[in-house]
């Protein structure tokens, strides 16, 4: 049941140089793939681009064809209250359940604020968040 809350994020290895993100974005555009959220983690000369897209399988395929290294990673998206304290209760819930956050990024707008999380134990996190009465983004909401 809670599998539907596990979202597939695509991660791409990306050399840190002008034009790399543009070529990646162009491939997605040309294939009609929409991005819901994006984050870039950088380390020295390279970065890892992480994105939530509406068609992750297709995105992986076309980006791999273009020569990008792509990996699909499981994350969860938590709907936050778009007001002060929205993040506090989510973070507290995870802390109480002894779940570590590997990384996180968020977007807000269109009446929603979503926190995307990569955590140490996805299933435990899903349960803890649902039990605490929070809402999770489900897979079908993406695409």
């Amino acid at each position, binding site marked *: 049941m809670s599998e539907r809350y596990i979202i597939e*994020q695509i*991660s791409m*290895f990306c*050399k840190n140089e002008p034009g790399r993100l543009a070529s990646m974005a162009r491939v997605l555009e040309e294939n009609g793939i929409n991005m819901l959220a994006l984050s870039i*983690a950088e*380390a*020295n*000369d*390279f970065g*890892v681009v*992480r994105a939530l897209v509406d068609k992750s399988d297709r995105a992986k395929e076309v980006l791999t064809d273009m*020569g*990008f*290294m792509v*990996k699909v*990673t499981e994350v969860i998206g938590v709907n936050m209250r778009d007001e002060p304290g929205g993040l506090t209760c989510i973070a507290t819930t995870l802390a109480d359940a002894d779940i570590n956050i*590997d*990384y996180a990024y968020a977007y807000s707008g269109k009446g929603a604020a979503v926190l995307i999380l*990569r955590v140490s134990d996805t299933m435990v996190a899903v349960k803890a968040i649902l039990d605490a009465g929070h809402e999770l983004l489900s897979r079908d909401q993406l695409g």
Partner: protein
Amino acid sequence: MPFFNHAIETLRRSEIEEMQLKLLRAQARRMYERSPFYHARMREVEVMPDDITRLDDVRRLPTTKKTDLRDNYPDKLFVPPLEKIVRYHVSSGTTGQPTVVAYTRNDIEMWSESLARAFASTGMGESDVIQVANGYGLFSGGMGMHYAGEKLGATVLPAGTGNTRRQVQFMMDLPVTCIACTPSYMLQIAEVAQSMGVSLQDDTRLERGILGAEPWSDSMKAKIEDEAGIKAYNCYGASELSGPLFTECEAQDGIHVWGDMALVEIIDPDTGEACADGEKGEMIVTMLQKEAMPLLRYRIGDMSSLSWDPCECGREHPRLMRLTGRVDDMMVIRGINVFPSQVEHLLYEVPEVGKNFQIVVDRVGNLDTMLIKVELEPEAFTDDILKLRHINRQVADGLKAVLNIKVEVQLVGPGTLPKGESEKASRVIDKRVM
């Protein structure tokens, strides 16, 4: 003190060559009798010690290649009795395998004597204070300079490498007249001195630099002499030969190779034919008096020319006129010899990266930098940036351990670097202006 060993240094060419023949015959005999390696080699080419009757006969003896050093690691080229060995130094080989060099007490004596003569030929003597800013330790540079300075009777300050501000401070506080280091480090010292508001020319007694262990040009020499207000003397040597051995004399017109220490041949690397006096070619060196690890006709890999023209300093010992490059793909980074094959070798030990690589060498300020681009294996790609950084660090640490210098490592995507042996040149991009 113009001469350190007057009798030897003032020999005429004919006397030098007569002495070289005698020493070569004795060395060949010793090798044949005591070195299993050279015994076999000489039998292979069917040359017996007694066949050496003229100096030109050296060309009948077998040559020694870097691969021979690798294949005989660590001690198969040592010549008994092994209990006479008093020291080892270690230098990098062409792959992960280093080269161990052994010395008897006499080898250390001769090495020190050779460089002490060279120091004296630059005008140095007992009243000089030499700051040795070469590396001490396994690298033979620092200790070679150190022992030669003491042999000369000068005062030695074993500063070692690094901590440039302190190096400058020493020059201010002590009557340092000479510094031994790499040319690029000399420029670095000059720059740091300037930033400290110190004029090496006015605020110190520095007069000369014994500079070597990396290639440098006449324009760099001019820059050093101008910026530091010193005379810069080129120095030549290699661990396989002992360490730093020879320098330019006061005339600064070529490096005197003491004829009783070394027999240098210059050959055409393609045909193997001997080059004429003054003609550029590949250097082959036979150390005539080394005991613990003597190499016959060692193909050291440097390109140069040798001149027997009498020097204006009065010495007739031949001079290496100009070191013009390498026969192989060895690079010198911050005074350390680096072979691309060493990098390749290390990459085989890190499964997360591919075997393709590219080395980018540059000089930032006055210090060499080395960037190594390696391809991440697709299976090793992970969303976890810490793991990727760990792979990066693993390669960097491994290379540091093998090469003895700090390198930057850049992970790139698979298939993004030029491939294969055929494009060997593109594996190394050297942006330095020497």
